[in-house]
């Protein structure tokens, strides 16, 4: 689907009229209704975990586990990562450091509340006192969940929302094997409530891992599709953090660098997946994006992708990739300068009349994401439910534009 209907004469025109109406009102009541004004002097906080990046970083897992006083580690991973040998590599490092561990790998993509509780059970029964997560967003989010369930002795679903974790989790060492989720540096964990088939967002500074060991080697075993999806997720993080109403000069720095790195490295790594330097660039991009969004938070794209992922169990990065351009179009008026700056990074033919949303759409098509939501199996009659869920998602709070439930429905419709 094209995004042209949104944009006429540099203004926002919606096929439905709702967005237009909002845009018109915005001209007279700037900041009151559809956007939140930002000021340089606004209070901001920047939380960042310790991280070590470079070749061989994952071999430091044992040393850090030992320095943290871990006596028994729960090594959280998933079957794919295990099969690729990265869980064993980390396990060896733990063994070398004399730290015993128990592997928990019963984790699916879009990790479920039941899997978190099962992991916490193992953590408890094995008398663990620290967690090492090896994998993409799923094992890392699950590991965060296991940590807070163990320290608080509560069901994972009770932590839904922002700042709902009273007792900090045991130390968590993350070794990301994808370049996208940035769960290894972020204050987010997304867990699927399997009973109600929805994704819940847990946001807390207590969820920021203690150490991230960023090693490019594990990225080389990612299949192409995963590389593309996680790369798009990272791009989405960077863009949403950059336009977030909670952004700051510090997050802007990381967000823009992330966007630049993804723009240059992601298409290249698709061509040359074994290239460690390119892989490392995507890993750095993900790190920058993570530092940005963990502190500036996200926006409507993620709120809506969480809605989709909960109901349809689709890859998170893919959902983001298919929603991003439509959200940019809907948000554009609330942060035109910022979106234009993003658009400029992606502009392939300067001088030609393009929009940031159009540039992003072209980019994702260029790396092979060409399907629509309809093709992924999403039906129009599901939209009201999806929109309601997205509307309740905490990511929506920092979207540059205040969206109503109807606005969100319209965006989903465009993305079908």
């Amino acid at each position: 689907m094209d995004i042209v209907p949104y944009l006429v004469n540099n203004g926002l025109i919606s096929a439905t009229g709702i967005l237009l109406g909002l845009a018109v009102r915005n001209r007279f009541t700037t900041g009151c209704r559809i956007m939140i004004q930002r000021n340089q002097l606004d209070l901001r906080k920047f939380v960042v975990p310790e991280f070590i990046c470079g070749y061989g970083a994952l071999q430091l897992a044992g040393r850090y586990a030992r320095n943290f006083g871990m006596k028994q580690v729960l090594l959280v991973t998933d079957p794919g990562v295990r099969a690729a040998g990265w869980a064993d590599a980390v396990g060896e490092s733990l063994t070398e450091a004399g730290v015993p561990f128990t592997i928990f790998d019963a984790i699916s993509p879009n990790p479920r509340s039941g899997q978190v509780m099962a992991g916490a059970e193992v953590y408890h029964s094995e008398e663990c006192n620290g967690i090492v997560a090896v994998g993409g967003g799923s094992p890392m989010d699950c590991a965060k969940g296991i940590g807070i369930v163990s320290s608080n002795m509560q069901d994972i679903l009770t932590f839904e929302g922002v700042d709902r974790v009273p007792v900090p989790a045991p130390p968590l060492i993350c070794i990301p094997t994808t370049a996208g989720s940035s769960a290894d540096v972020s204050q987010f964990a997304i867990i699927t409530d399997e009973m109600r088939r929805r994704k819940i967002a847990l946001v807390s500074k207590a969820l920021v891992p203690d150490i991230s060991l960023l090693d490019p080697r594990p990225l080389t075993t990612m299949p192409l599709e995963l590389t593309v999806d996680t790369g798009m997720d990272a791009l989405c993080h960077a863009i949403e953090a950059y336009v977030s109403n909670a952004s700051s000069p510090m997050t802007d720095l990381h967000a823009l660098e992330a966007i630049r790195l993804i723009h240059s490295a992601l298409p290249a790594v698709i061509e040359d997946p074994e290239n460690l330097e390119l892989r490392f660039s995507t890993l750095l991009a993900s790190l920058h994006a993570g530092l940005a969004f963990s502190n500036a938070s996200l926006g409507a794209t993620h709120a809506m992708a969480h809605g989709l992922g909960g109901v349809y169990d689709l890859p998170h990065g893919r959902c983001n990739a298919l929603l991003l351009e439509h959200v940019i179009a809907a948000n554009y008026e609330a942060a035109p300068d910022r979106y234009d700056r993003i658009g400029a990074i992606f502009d392939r033919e300067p001088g030609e009349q393009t929009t940031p949303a159009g540039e992003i759409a072209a980019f994702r098509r260029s790396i092979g994401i060409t399907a629509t939501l309809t093709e992924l199996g999403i039906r129009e009659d599901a939209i009201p439910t999806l929109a309601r869920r997205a509307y309740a998602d905490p990511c929506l709070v920092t979207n540059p534009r205040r969206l109503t439930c109807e606005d969100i429905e319209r965006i989903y419709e465009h993305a079908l």
Partner: protein
Amino acid sequence: MSMHSEPPDDPDTLREKIIGLGETSLHKSYYPELQSRLAELERFRALLDQTHDAIFLIHAETGRLADVNASAGMYLDCSKKELLATPFINWISPQKKAVFDEFARRSCEQLPASRWTCIASLVSREGRETPVEITVRSVTFGDKQYLVAIARDITDRLQAERELKIKESALESSTNGILITDLAGTIMYANPGFASIFGYERGEMLAGRSLEIFFANPAIGKKVTDLLRKNHAITEETIGVRNGGSPFHIQVSGSVVQNDAGQPLCIMLIVMDITERILIDQLKRETCAQLGKNIEQFAILGDHIRNPLQVIVGYAEMIDDPLAKMILDQSDRIDEIITQLDRGWVESANVRQFLRRHGDDAEPRVETFIQRFSIKDWDS
């Protein structure tokens, strides 16, 4: 300027460390220290779980359990998890609930209620009761008021108390005099029987006094304790002195009470008034002596009769006269009578022998430690 003598790192190692790749380069974290403190706490909890006392931590405001040790769960047939957040008074005998509530209220209002002890029962989920002595203290952790209740199982103590009560009543009701003294012979306890034998109103009046005042010869008191220390048990007879000063015969049995390790703790004496028995014995002895004398006199008398009878028989045999036969016949009859008397004497002597052998008539035994005093001696 560096004061220590360790060799300095080479520039490469130093650079590594500055980058943060040193073996111990770590972001500030309290976790390792917290872990060791937790381990310490765990060890302490294990210790608390080892004690037989049930320990309860109670929220003063709500009266609900905040924590318990393993023994608490054992007495109440519940897991710790099941016990937490239940009201403490649910687990104690009904008659103590109101008293406990009052104590909790006072400590909540910070009135003086620092410690309270009572005997109650812990009532398990199955209704099993365990008698306990509960000590409750008010404590403050942070800004929260708690009560710590420690319940000690007193089943064994109650049983021991019951047994002691029985033994005590046995001592109190015995008609024999029972005396418990320390090893030096100072009285710790005298039962009513003893008081009555010695003419005192109550046994309690005698505590603290010395043993010697109850013997006619005060030195015997010391002899008793000395002998007991040597022999551990004695049975002897001697003369006691009543409250008013009158002497009487007593038998004293004594033993040294020892603890499980065989160390002497105290002396226990059983005293019996044997005046009546002594008098009867004396009477018997006198009767026996009289009997002996009578028997001897009979024997002598027989011999005395036989001598003239022999002369008569001699004369009669020399007379040739029909009357002589009659004299001889009559003499034979007299002889037969004397023979019968002799036989009677022999039988009486056997009886006396028998009496002697069976002791009633025995000579008084040789005193081993107590100089025998007769009442007459005392009187004189």
